[in-house]
């Protein structure tokens, strides 16, 4: 299929982009890396009148650290997020997630802001945002808003973004020296959407794990923080944590996979991630595959 006709604008500033979105209302959509939107257009699943291309706007891409926060510009490509030295040092969870994101060609174009704004429930960055207590920074016609990841992902392809708003950055607090993390994803083929995925963070002390955050993806209509399971992990009860998942996850109906299978796989990866976070003296090395 071929995309229906649309108009295209390539604004040179964020204000100009916001003005275009405001002027065209629901007929306009922002274009970031295009890895989902262009497919949607070609399948004629969407027919926006105007694409507002964000790629020429200066300052939307790039990674920096200040005041205990790593700021990742929304237009930073997946590959650049996961290979950035600062990210690899401060946010190894993100680096671990990168090789699971689709394929190199997609990683080279797709952006973290686009992924967060799309909120596909089977993708990696939204779960990493939840696990890493990220803040999603958005700009609208009026002002900037800062939204905690926990309040941002509201449902299937649904976020707290208001019409006319654009994600400008994702900010992660720098984990402390006692921080540990875990990441596991099961997909049929390398790069496929997750059958079950887990991004986890915690602090490890003499008494075990505290501050456990288990962000599952591919297991509901949005990335899910499994709080009861996290509490069980903190209590050292991995089996209990696995059992708690049935009350916290709501695996989707899928023509290729039964919900019970996804739930089973979620329990398996929770066991593996928890085992590594509890037992290993040091974290796994950050993967080099990009």
């Amino acid at each position, binding site marked *: *299929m*071929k*995309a*229906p*006709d649309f108009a295209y604008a390539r604004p040179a500033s964020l204000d100009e982009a916001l003005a275009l979105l405001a002027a065209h209302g629901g007929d306009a959509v922002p274009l970031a890396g295009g890895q989902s939107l262009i497919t949607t257009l070609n*399948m*004629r699943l969407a027919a926006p009148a105007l694409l507002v291309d964000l790629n020429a706007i200066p300052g939307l891409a790039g990674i920096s650290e200040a005041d205990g926060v790593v700021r990742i510009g929304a237009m930073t490509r997946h590959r650049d997020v996961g290979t950035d030295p600062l990210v690899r040092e401060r946010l190894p969870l993100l680096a671990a997630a990168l090789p699971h994101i689709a394929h190199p060609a997609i990683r080279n174009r797709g952006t973290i802001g686009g992924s967060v704004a799309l909120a596909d429930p089977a993708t990696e960055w939204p779960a990493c945002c939840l696990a890493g207590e990220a803040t999603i920074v958005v700009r609208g016609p009026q002002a900037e808003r800062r939204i905690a990841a926990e309040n941002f992902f509201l449902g299937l392809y649904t976020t707290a973004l208001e019409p006319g708003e654009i994600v400008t950055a994702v900010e992660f607090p720098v984990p402390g020296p006692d921080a540990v993390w875990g990441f596991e994803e*099961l997909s*049929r*083929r*390398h*790069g*496929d*959407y997750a*059958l079950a995925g887990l991004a986890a963070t915690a602090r490890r002390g003499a008494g075990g794990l505290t501050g456990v955050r288990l962000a599952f993806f591919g297991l509901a209509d949005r990335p899910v923080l499994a709080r009861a399971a996290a509490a069980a992990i903190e209590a050292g009860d991995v089996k209990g944590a696995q059992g708690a998942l049935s009350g916290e996850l709501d695996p989707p109906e899928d*023509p*290729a*996979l*039964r919900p*019970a*299978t996804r739930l*089973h*796989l979620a329990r*398996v990866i929770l066991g593996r991630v928890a085992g590594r976070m509890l037992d290993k003296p040091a974290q796994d090395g950050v993967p080099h595959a990009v």
Partner: protein
Amino acid sequence: MSTDPGGLTFLDRPNSYIGRSVPRPNARRLLEGRGVYVDDVAMARLGHVAFLRSPHAHARILSLETGAARAMPGVIAVVTGRELAEVCTPWIGVLGHFKGLRSAPQHALAVDRVTWVGEPFCAVVARSRAEAEDALALIAVEFEPLPAVVDMETALDPGTPAIHPDLGDNLAFERVLDVGDVDAAFRDAACVVEETFRFGRHTGVCLEPRAIMADWAAADGMLTVHHSFQAPHMMQDILAKHLSLPEGAVRVICRDVGGSFGIKVHIYPDEMATCALALMLKRPVKFVADRLESFQSDIHARDHRVTARMAFSAEGDILAVDMDDLTGIGPYSVYPRTSAVEANQVVNLTGGPYRHRHYRARARVVLQNKAPTCQYRAVGHPIATMVAEGLVDLGAARLGLDPFAVRERNVIRDDAYPCAGVSGIKLETLSHQAALAKLKAMMDYEALRAEQAALRERGIHRGIGLAAFIEITNPSAAFYGVGGARISSQDGCTIRLDPQGGIVAAVSVTEQGQGTEAIIAQIVATATGVPIEKVRVISGDTQATPYGGGTWASRGAGIGGEAAWQAGKALRENVVAVAGAILQADPASLDVRGGAVVDAATGTERMPLAELGRIVYFRPDTLPPGVQPEFVATRHYVPKDYPFAFTNGVQASYVEVDPETGFVRLLKHWCVEDCGTVLNPLLVDEQIRGGIVQGIGGALFEHCLYDADGQLLNGSMADYLVPMAGEMPDIAVAHVVSPTASSEIGAKGAGEAGTAGAPAAVVNAINDALRPFGARVARQPVTPEVVLEALGLI
């Protein structure tokens, strides 16, 4: 095998290219992006067609309102099924040798009724595809949904309505074979194993989708069709018949074709409609299937349920096989090859490597409201091989015997040929014993078993799977022609020597990326004595090549290659005859080597071909009286003594199963096969590897998923999982060489061996890994969910 006057076989003729991994002559062009696929052919006044396809599995079309679409910008025409039927006659996909096979007339664009999701019923031709799609959205259709027959298991129930009421029920074809005394063999057996195997419906995913561009030049009275297709002469014949044109008014050109796998050898409604539209509109019209259309309307394959049992003696002799195959083929048997072939092959091939003399098989082919199925790479082979090999492994486990030893014990002995298989197939010469021996050494079977046992102690669950198989290649007219199909089983090659000593070879077999043209160039160069760099091959043009069947059923090298060999020999004889007259030498004392006429005994150059060409073409006045050079030679070939050249092989797979997740990791794969003379080891090995990967696709990944209403649920590359390099194992390939005596070159086909055996090898390996858990799988694709269900974990 051919022998020269000097006692040389063609394999060791001086400057022979046979048996060498000569690079494909078209590889560089394709890698540089200079291929010419249908979509690359430029044409003035081109119209692009897009089709309105049924959203229902089965529905009556109550009304079709096209006025708004006709008024859209860029629209050239909107044509309904009824309008198109005035130009293109319907067809019925039946053949005489499948007794009782029934189907219904099928139109290029459905008239009144649609029978599967994706069936085209209205066309829009516009200046661009996008404009055509814009107009499609404005066609108003009123449907009356009809009951859909989706599940093949209930298609024959008395309460299930017949898709085609005139046929009375949904049984398209049934075949029963009963050889020996099956009941007695089972009664007396020491061990009987039984399994129900399910084979998911899948399809061949071509890099280049189906594509066709037709141009009707009224002034020439010529319909020129550029087509991504395997059998141009068949398409010419069928277009002439159904568009009511004389044969000579249709030219079909297949330039570069980006993969086919049997997908591009069938008659598709949308492609016929495109040609009819070109006639109606008197301008070129192009159709290129997009990926969703491909999944909805390319032929699918497999979709079989086989319940089978195998009887063994206590020592492990296979005594008998009894099987029942049910397959759903969609609403029509596909034209012109029919959709009965896969089930028929399952009956012919199951247990084919083995010596048992008692065999009963029933195959039932039923109609259903899903995309039509037809012949895809290794038609029936993966099913037949899985059924027999799965049962062999079950029997070996039950008897406590090594599965390798059971196969060694039961295969037809290498010295038993020629003979007939239990299903009646005629086998010229096979090499199961040699292949098993080679495989055993190659994979170091005993060491692998020891490794498997040691790892099991550590909780690592690996499995070894074996699959012996036979493959049908080099089909004669027995495949289709005897049933009345106008599909040529003979092929031809015309070779011309040009003045500078170069060769142009036109062949009726075709190239879709597998290297047919490379094989032909090797053979022609060897036969004529001209360096391969000076050989140009033309294929895929009904107006420029001899008449023939094209490339399918692993026939390009074995049949087209033999025609090229014979043509090359004939040209060489013509050349040395003329050279002898000029040189006043006995032609029998001369040969052509390295582009020059030489003394056959010493190799001493007597005359370069360029000099001969100069004389023959530009100074024929200087030739001795009575000498008339004929530097064009044509030969045709079809196998006559055997209906098919069967080949054989055996594959092995080594996998690791994660018993918690159900994930299967492919560690290593081996294949030993016997395609007779190996013309080009590189191409044969890559055919085998590619075939194995497609077999693994069916075993683990690929599945056309339909819901209970007949909706296709995964029509995209994100949801339909083709096998990808990252998940594939290393594949080791070796050969046993038993040339066929039917031809001089002795080559049999190699295109389907990989796909024939890979699924059984992989599934058997998975079951080998699962054996300590008392679990087994028998449903393909073997997804993690299938494994987890077998383990009782979900």
